């Protein structure tokens, strides 16, 4: 029984939040990695793209709510997600046409691309704050919990329990679905294969008659779509704050690099590695140990490796360790 109690505690405070946050990071990192694989630069504007997608979704959700549209038990935002994806993809299309296409034609240095992406980041950040303002927006309606801690305790008769938030379930399920679709697309379809070929060897791909513009545009559209998903799911799960997305850039990049840049599977795994280790390192194990150890050995301190305030530092430390020990990442991506 004690073991089950400890397990329930860990599920509630580490596993569920970890897999949810990990899914959000994974979706973000997938976008970063795809852009890197095809266009060969680190897109610093990706966080703001997530923010942009979420903002569009929020605006349409407000509009829909004012007409009385809702999605029953699920958040209304999900209805308007496709529209938000459309707008974000269009925005990415515009960015590619007006900013990056020029440098691609000129075959500029990756660092020039990076600086350009910072220009895009600045512009997008300003646009978002100009439209929706800098304050927090909570747009999660519908039922909050599928089952909460109290119901779980009553059902199982344990002393500890875990609750499953609707947003957590949606996030994890959506991520599994999206990743499966993406991997089938990349591995089985002709267009997906042409994308991978372009990423592996640009010259050879051109020689085989693959249209580079088509591949690049498609990459942007997919990255924009994934960014919208990541942004909306993060906003549903926690709260939408325009400035939080610049801070999320670091864990997202860490996830992409830890998994191996340019490798989609790596990005997903990296996302979960980063999120779970953030929570494992900053969790206070006192209660868990109290269940697992005999009474005489009960710990007196919090049994915490690192204060919760340093959550973001964890992703950075992992990044540095990976960069020193294995710069290609877990799944042998490209070195930047």
């Amino acid at each position, binding site marked *: 029984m004690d073991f089950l109690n400890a397990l329930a505690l860990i599920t509630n405070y580490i596993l569920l939040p970890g897999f949810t946050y990990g899914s959000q990071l994974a979706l973000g990192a997938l976008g970063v990695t795809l852009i890197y694989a095809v266009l060969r630069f680190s897109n610093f504007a990706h966080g703001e793209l997530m923010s942009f997608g979420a903002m569009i979704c929020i605006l349409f959700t407000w509009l829909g709510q004012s007409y009385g549209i809702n999605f029953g038990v699920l958040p209304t935002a999900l209805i308007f997600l496709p529209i938000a994806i459309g707008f974000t993809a269009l925005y990415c299309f515009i960015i590619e046409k007006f900013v990056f296409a020029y440098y691609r034609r000129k075959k500029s240095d990756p660092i020039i691309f990076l600086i350009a992406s*910072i220009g895009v980041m600045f*512009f997008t*950040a300003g646009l978002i704050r100009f439209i929706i303002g800098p304050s927090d927006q909570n747009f999660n309606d519908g039922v909050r919990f599928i089952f909460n801690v109290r119901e779980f305790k009553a059902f199982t008769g344990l002393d500890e329990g875990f609750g499953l938030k609707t947003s957590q379930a949606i996030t994890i399920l959506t991520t599994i679905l999206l990743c499966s679709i993406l991997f089938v697309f990349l591995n089985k379809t002709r267009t997906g294969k042409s994308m991978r070929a372009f990423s592996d060897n640009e010259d050879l791909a051109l020689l085989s008659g693959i249209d580079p513009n088509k591949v690049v545009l498609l990459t942007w559209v997919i990255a924009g779509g994934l960014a919208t998903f990541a942004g909306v799911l993060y906003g549903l799960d926690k709260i939408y704050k325009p400035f939080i997305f610049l801070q999320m850039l670091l864990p997202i990049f*860490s996830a992409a*690099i830890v998994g191996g840049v340019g490798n989609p599977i790596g990005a997903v795994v990296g996302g979960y590695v980063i999120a779970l280790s953030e929570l494992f390192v900053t969790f206070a194990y006192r209660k868990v140990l109290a269940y697992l150890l005999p009474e005489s050995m009960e710990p007196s301190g919090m049994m915490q490796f690192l204060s919760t305030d340093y959550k*973001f530092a964890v992703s950075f430390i992992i990044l540095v360790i990976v960069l020193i020990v294995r*710069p290609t990442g877990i799944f042998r991506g490209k070195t930047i």
Partner: protein
Amino acid sequence: MNDVLRRSLVFSTFAVAIVVIGFLQSWNVALGIFNLCLISATMALGVNIQLGYAGIFNAGVMGFAALGGLSAVIISYKPVSETISLGGLGILICILILLLGSVLGVLVYKSNLSQAYKKILFPIIIIVVLLLLNLIGAPAVERIEAFEPAASGFLGGFGLPIILSWIVGGVIAGLVAYLIGKITLGLRSDYLAIATLGIAEVIIYILKNEDWLTRGVKNVNGLPRPVPYEIDLQESTWFIELCKNFGFPLVETSSIVVKLSYCFLFSIVVLTIFILSEVALKSPWGRMMRAIRDNEISARAMGKNVKARHLEIFILGSAIIGLAGAMLTTLEGQFTPTTYQPLRFTFTVWVMVIIGGTGNNYGSLIGGFLVWFLWVEAEPLGLYLVELITSPLSETNPLRIQLITNAAHMRYMMMGLLLLLVLRFAPKGIFPEGR
């Protein structure tokens, strides 16, 4: 000759802009902007050394600036004797343990033990150090932070003149840069940018959360000044006499005098750094740096130690950024960790350097001046534009109210556009790097 003409033209245009602000808004505002322009230019000079001379992408500018701010607090704030007696010893022991641990770590690293031993010894050292820090540090920190948390709750500083912190800020930033550079400089450009971005975040997190050192988000107010206070000037007889003789308004003149004295101090720093970096750029050392930047492989073939040179330049540039950070905190008279945002510090400074012309010190000066000027003036300008565009709408139109309240954020859009346009149409900036 063409160069000189171009420079004097651009700089005098900027001078005219400041004078226009002086007449239109007030001389107080104009001088306030100019002081911050000087600080921005210092930061831009620091980043230019890294980005321009050596092509190192440091996305951690914010962190180094914050370290400068921290040193301003530690140097100038008077020591809080109560907290020092409560927990000073514990903190001191912790610092010693950290030092000892690092020395031990380095010794193990340098020793000729086998890899297997090292792999076991490193984690042991880290865990022991962390445990000791927790055992000794945590109670000390708790005692310090519990002492009058609303007014104090931190150790204070050394109570020395704040000007000293400009040098100390540079030194601290340089030391941290040494550690960071050792780890990250072997990486290629993208990784380096991401890693330094992370380090800056971590530094800010530490400053926000270690209340015993910085009071965290409670901020440190009332840092002493290197220049007289307005109120003292207004009460001293010679100043009243002076104002009466020339017919100046007393209150306004006093604050202008204070701003002018800051301006004088900052100008000395900016000019010194500018001249030194110009000399360095024109020296064999500067040529070597540019050779390394332009072709690392052939520079290495010529026997240049690229990694050591990069480390050197990373430390130098970061030290100058730290100095500028200390100057900024001195000017503001308070240390607020929450104001350190990457958009405002790191990336804006990049924009300054790129717009001015990467690798050209004149460019960094004018880039720092212009971008800061635009950054400040974008707010009234954006407001004016929005009001103009939305003027057909009624006063109570929600869209109009929304746009007007958010008009200040136009500055981010403007920065982005400016950067993109310069990068596309004038990638060498206002003053291209000379041959």
